[in-house]
């Protein structure tokens, strides 16, 4: 099924040329970043580089700080110490807006605006920035095809969408302005298992097609192994181990890593 999907996606002549980041330039980098909420340490000082054009997965038990990293990158919260760099620009209030528009962000329940139809949700920012309506319509058609969403669904309001449709719309919204980085915070966690499995396959195809820098947060090891080029396993606000899944599985850095991987594998995967 995946093969068919990839063929569909890549053979399609309406698809854009895959967006290859210029010279693989825009890595996101965290330098000495820590975050404390009311004296509770969410992240210990931490250096992280996300590889361009690759899918990095942040994983770890609840409260390990994986979502915090995403929220720091998109600027919803500010680091207590250290700095976050996007294409060597340090994130600060002055450039936050511009940098956010070059990223796409999808959260667990989609975060769609309930007062707007799916189409209005997706086009909100483009219209606000007065992008050419014609181009946006073409882009929307393209993304509907990519995410396998029927365009007729776009006339509905979020309450009228299924969970899977909601996440697809949310993904389209994030991709609308061709972001250089895609941030996904447990995008599939709220879906029922069958829909989740379908979307996991589709996401992989989409990532491969876009060849974009993706940072995905999940708590599910199978999803991480399936989607991630690089896995960053976090524990209590610090990196326990980072690398391809095989490395984590075959050469765990410590007991926590092997325990985390074995516990989840006992549940059946992979």
């Amino acid at each position: 099924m995946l093969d068919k999907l990839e063929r569909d996606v890549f053979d399609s002549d309406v698809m854009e040329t895959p967006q290859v980041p210029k010279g693989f330039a825009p890595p996101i980098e965290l330098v000495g970043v820590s975050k404390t909420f009311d004296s509770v340490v969410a992240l210990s000082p931490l250096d992280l580089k996300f590889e361009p054009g690759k899918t990095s997965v942040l994983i770890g038990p609840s409260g390990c700080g994986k979502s915090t990293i995403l929220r720091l990158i998109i600027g919803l919260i500010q680091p207590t110490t250290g700095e976050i760099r996007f294409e060597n620009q340090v994130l600060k209030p002055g450039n936050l807006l511009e940098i956010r528009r070059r990223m796409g962000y999808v959260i667990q329940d989609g975060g769609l605006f309930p007062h707007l139809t799916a189409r209005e949700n997706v086009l909100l920012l483009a219209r606000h920035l007065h992008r050419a309506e014609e181009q946006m319509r073409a882009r929307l058609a393209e993304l509907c095809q990519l995410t396998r969403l029927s365009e007729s669904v776009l006339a509905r309001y979020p309450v009228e969408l299924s969970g899977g449709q909601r996440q697809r719309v949310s993904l389209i919204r994030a991709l609308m302005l061709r972001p250089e980085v895609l941030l996904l915070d447990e995008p599939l966690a709220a879906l029922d298992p069958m829909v989740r499995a379908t979307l996991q396959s589709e996401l992989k195809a989409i990532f491969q097609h876009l060849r974009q820098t993706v940072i995905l947060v999940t708590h599910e090891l199978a999803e991480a192994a399936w989607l991630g080029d690089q896995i960053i396993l976090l524990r209590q606000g610090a990196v326990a181990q980072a690398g391809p899944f095989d490395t984590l599985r075959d050469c765990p850095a410590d007991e926590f890593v092997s325990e985390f991987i074995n516990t989840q594998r006992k549940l059946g995967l992979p």
Partner: protein
Amino acid sequence: MRLLALVSAALLAGQRPVASAPLQPVVIGSKKFTESYVLAEIANRAMERSGLSTQLRPGMGGTIILWEALRQGAVTCYPEYTGTLREVILKPIDPATGMTSTSNVQQLRERLAPFGVGMTGELGFNNTYALAMRRQRADSLGIHQISDLKNHPDLPVGLSHEFMGRADGWPGLCSRYGLRMRNVRGTDHTLAYLALAKGEINIIDAYSTDARIAEEDLVTLRDDQDFFPQYQAVFLYRLEADPRVLKALRSLEGTLPERKMIQLNALAERTRDYSKAAASYFHERNPSHHHPLSANLARWTGRHLLLVGLSLSASILVGIPLGIWAGRPGGLSEIILGITGVVQTVPSLALLAVLVSIPMLGIGPQTAIVALFLYGLLPIVRNTASGLQDISRPVRESSEALGLEPRARLTKVFLPLASRSILAGIKTSAVINVGTATLAALIGAGGLGEPIISGLNLNDRALILEGAVPAALLALLVQTGFAFLDRLLIPKGLRLSGA
């Protein structure tokens, strides 16, 4: 608020009197009881006869409101009593002057001059306070004079609020006579007569020229210890007013003995028409001031809508930004909601009285609009703030992460999402304003309160209903109107479910 006052003043220009400008009409005020209405009508006719352009502001509430209005030039003249001048107006301003009940006209004039206010000679009657009972009841209890009450401390007493509070009213009377009445309550003067007739109360305060003393077979109790001071009727006027004003007012001096005044009061109450009484004073047959009900109703309702419309618009324009401000996290929210909440707890009459004393406002629609604006603020501020605070975190953060600047987040996401709550707040304010605006008539702002207040004074239920029914219908109309607005303004996506 300054801006609002300017706006409403500009909108109502032409209705706003400026006493010094010769082309402006002479504004004649009155208090809200029959005799005061009649005297104002008589003065109105006297001035019209001498070719002055006049404007009546009848039933403007209590002494202080009128005095402030006169002092600020919002009214040119109004009927007053020498006793009230001494006890209520001058004494509190400067207690050291030793105003006594024997102060004569000349002394009073000297004291009024610094305020730019003059006083005519006495009109001819003394309308002092009196205690009144039904003749039958008084006879059966053997009560003829006030000191007889000492033997009947349990008789129920119903007093007008002003009489109850004035030093020369109930408190002074009790201490002079050593009365210890155990059953005293405050009621509207007109309602007190009804309660007296029904026997719910046995004793009321009355004016000695009150028509109903004769009509309802009441007796006034003799003031055997000469407690009540002289309340000679006079006109107060602005010293800088057109000389013809004074001339017209002085032509009334000495022409109204007590019996004549009681007659005119009785005529006014019987015919339910103050101008008819005034016409009778001048021996005119056909009063020229006669409006059919439909014309009155249109005028009252139009003014009512103007008051509500302007004040509500101002509440919305100020309330929504304040609510947005209050909806942000932080201590500011509590402060803003606290202040607007306190305004709402001030009784409407007290708020009107306070506002009337502000020089820029004074008497008239602009003050009513400011008061209604203040009352309308809280529901809008509170609902805007809570509507914004109720927006879920995922939606809030998505709009931020999307790269919308704060302003666009507010206008494109947050305000539409809070629209249901904001509209509910505006609806509450509108309904409150339609009701409260009936009180605007007390400060000469007109509206549907005008027939209600005159009706209360004339004990004319039909007249009360002429104001009360349209006011109630208006409130219903507002309700339905908002149901329609809900459909128009609340985004469909929010109406589809409980979302």
